[in-house]
């Protein structure tokens, strides 16, 4: 090819410089303050509604807490609700398009960190919850063991994958991919497959599906600390290094909203807020959360032994299921923002703490 090296170099330099010349660039990140703060939720409401539900961070977004916090600074708050769940949050962060995630499950968070994504865990976004293993409406299965050799569905790469494996492990199934055909589907596709009977089982919220007559509960688990694992709220390391004061303000605002969310007087307000996302109906929210007598048991921002133990347990499981190709240590946990917020709000001993196995230390 007779293109000279000088011509080529000039052209390449021109191509790289062109963005600056025509004024296109990513959002400005001035030294003092950013023009915007970009926050992810690893979920979205039914039909792609830009809403989350079921956590204090969702409440903070629904009630505009962060917008109010930074209104006087002129900093724009940009929420992103990813239908592609935790993996989509990783992809967006890997491309420099996120500063915070207000919800991220253990599996995508840890795998992302293991592949070099730099983030710091600053809060837990909640813990506990019910797990329902369900099948098509005409299933005769009494347990997952009755479905061996059949197709199960889960959105791989999400925390739901590990939850499914944990449920199966309760029945002695340690190598689920050998016992079942496990396919990856998002929530909408999975529910469609249940209706047509093309999958034999999955973990999902059963209420709406049962009301439509397309699914049936096979087995349910309620707030089993060994099945669930706390979610994470994180900040990108670069943002945290540049704007630690802004991180503190966000953490404090979130902890304040977490406290509000645990108050019995606000239980009904939350049910109705969460219903807006369409993920669960009001009645389903009431049924799911009605069993939780003390809201602090689920709505808990602490990075305690249970949080750490949950991540360690997840790492072990991921290695065993060959979902983690590299080692990952837990030096990304940063408690100083949480501790400062708890002290400022005088909530140091407000939330119950649990040990790694889920046993309550402080109630």
């Amino acid at each position, binding site marked *: 090819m007779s293109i000279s090296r000088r011509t080529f170099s000039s052209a390449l330099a021109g191509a790289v410089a062109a963005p600056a010349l025509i004024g296109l660039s990513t959002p400005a990140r001035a030294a003092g303050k950013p023009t915007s703060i970009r926050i992810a939720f690893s979920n979205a409401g039914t039909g792609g509604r830009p809403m989350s539900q079921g956590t204090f961070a969702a409440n903070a977004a629904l009630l505009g807490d962060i917008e109010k916090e930074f209104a006087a600074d002129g900093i724009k708050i940009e929420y992103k609700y990813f239908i*592609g769940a935790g*993996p989509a949050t990783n992809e967006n962060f890997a491309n420099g398009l996120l500063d915070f995630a207000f919800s991220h499950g253990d599996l995508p968070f840890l*795998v992302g960190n293991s592949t070099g994504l730099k983030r710091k865990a600053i809060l837990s976004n909640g813990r506990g919850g019910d797990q329902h293993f369900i099948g098509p409406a005409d299933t005769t299965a009494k347990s997952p063991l009755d479905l061996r050799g059949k197709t199960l569905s889960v959105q*791989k790469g999400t925390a739901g994958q590990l939850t499914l494996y944990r449920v199966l492990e309760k029945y002695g199934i340690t190598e689920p991919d050998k016992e079942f055909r496990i396919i990856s589907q998002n929530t909408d596709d999975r529910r469609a497959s249940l209706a047509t009977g093309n999958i034999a089982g999955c973990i999902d919220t059963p209420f709406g599906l049962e009301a439509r007559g397309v699914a049936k509960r096979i087995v349910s688990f309620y707030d089993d600390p060994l099945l669930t694992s706390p979610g994470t709220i994180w900040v990108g390391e670069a943002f945290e290094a540049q704007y630690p004061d802004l991180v503190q303000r966000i953490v404090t605002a979130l902890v304040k909203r977490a406290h509000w969310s645990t108050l019995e007087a606000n239980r009904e307000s939350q049910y109705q807020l969460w219903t807006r996302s369409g993920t669960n109906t009001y009645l389903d929210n009431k049924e799911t959360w009605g069993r939780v007598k003390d809201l602090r048991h689920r709505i808990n921002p602490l990075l305690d032994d249970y949080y750490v133990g949950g991540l360690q347990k997840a790492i072990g499981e991921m290695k065993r299921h060959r979902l983690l190709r590299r080692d990952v240590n837990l030096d990304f946990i940063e408690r100083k923002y949480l501790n400062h917020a708890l002290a400022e709000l005088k909530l140091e001993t407000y939330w119950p703490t649990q040990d790694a196995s889920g046993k309550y230390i402080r109630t």
Partner: protein
Amino acid sequence: MKESIHTKSALTAAVLLALSSQAAVAQTASSAADIQSLKQTIEQLRKQVDELRNTSRSTATPEQAEGETQEALDARTPATKADVQGLRADLENYKYDQSRAIERNIPSVVRNTKIGGGVTLRYDLRSPAEQPATSAVGTTPAESRASGFATPQFNLNFAGTLYRDYDEGRNLTYRLAFSNNASASSSTATTDATNVVNASDVYVRYSYQPSTGNPEDPLGTITLGQQVVPFGLDAQALDPEVKAVIGNAGFVSGLNLNKRQVGVAIQGDFNPYVDFSNNYRAPAVTYALGLYNGNGPNRVDNNNHRDLVGRLAYTLPVDYNSWWRQIQVGTSYYLGKPTLGATNGYAASNVTGKSTRTGVDVNWTHLPFSISYEWAYGRDRLLANDALVTSGKNPDGVQRGVGQYINFGYTWGEQFLSSSRQQGKFDDYWPKSYQAFIRFDQWDPNRSGKVINDKVYVTTVGLNVFFAETTKFQVNYLRTRNQLGTSAATAARPSSSNGLQAQFNATF
């Protein structure tokens, strides 16, 4: 409601009890103590009735307790039968409106069908101006032309599912598209070829591998009909909606790879590497094998020979966050046996020719950066009486052409990230993106040592602006240099020319 029934029952019971008690008193004329006792009983019953009344009233219109939220108050406020009936009436009205709209206002199809299409509008400038003597397809000017508008392509397409396999997604689908694009034209370069609407894609496709969306499964399809030939990278980008650069590389038209063909092709991949933490899928091997008539679209075959095309590509199995992500190396081969003479009108002397195309391509797309390089070499047997043979320029009766390009791209924005495209939004949201590129293209139509000074070099600098989900605006600046050697420049073949193309491409 229930409270009201209870209240009435209690009142009735109390009155009956009181009357029966009074009758008993009259009949037995018992002691004053008994009477006093009965009075107390009646008084207690009266109190209970009053309490029930109060309870009934308070349930119908509960009062907000101090510190109670509106939501908590709402939660203990019952709905009346009228409320429920009103809600049901609204629901029935909605259901009626829906069924009426489906019957009267929504078009229907026999089979699952999606209708799409697109328009491409262009304005171009060129220097020196194009002269009337220039005979280019569809653009021959009546007099000197330095600028003008054009609608280089419009299309309308239908696609859908003929058979849906709910178990494993081994579906049978179809696509029918009409276009004025030259790649769909059955005629050779006639003046009005680009103004005639032809069928472009006409095929049915069967997935012989599961296509349930599980990224760990290999993909595989058989496509029967008129389709794009799976050769290289740029030759497969024939339609404006999939092209980053407005014009194809020189070898695509030079080696006659810019036509759809009629035949059958097997395409797929296997052993995909999946990084679930980022929704990234990289099949280790992508393959394609096709058998075609070889004489272009919208025609019956003109001989008894089928053309064969094969392609293999390897993608590095690495995580999404690796710098080596999406490095793909591919190779393609095309073997054709065209009937020589047919297009030149030498029917009496028709002979079976042989054409081969060999291609190698390397692509690296790691947003925001992308680099692609492609090299293609073609070999065509010539008729013995072809001017190139008789003049001694190609004494061995074979014309060989070679072309290559390298393209550097830089992208800003989120258009190409699935996470950004699939965000929950209320509005018609689509991330804006900008893509700048520079491409160096070289085409040598005849490598014979006796045919020199025929190379063409085109450098294209461009910017694509993706400002809506299916709409983009493209600006390309082209600098074309013709290798002249000792030959003099002519109006048809100047030593160099400049062109500016601004194109708006919208699909729906």
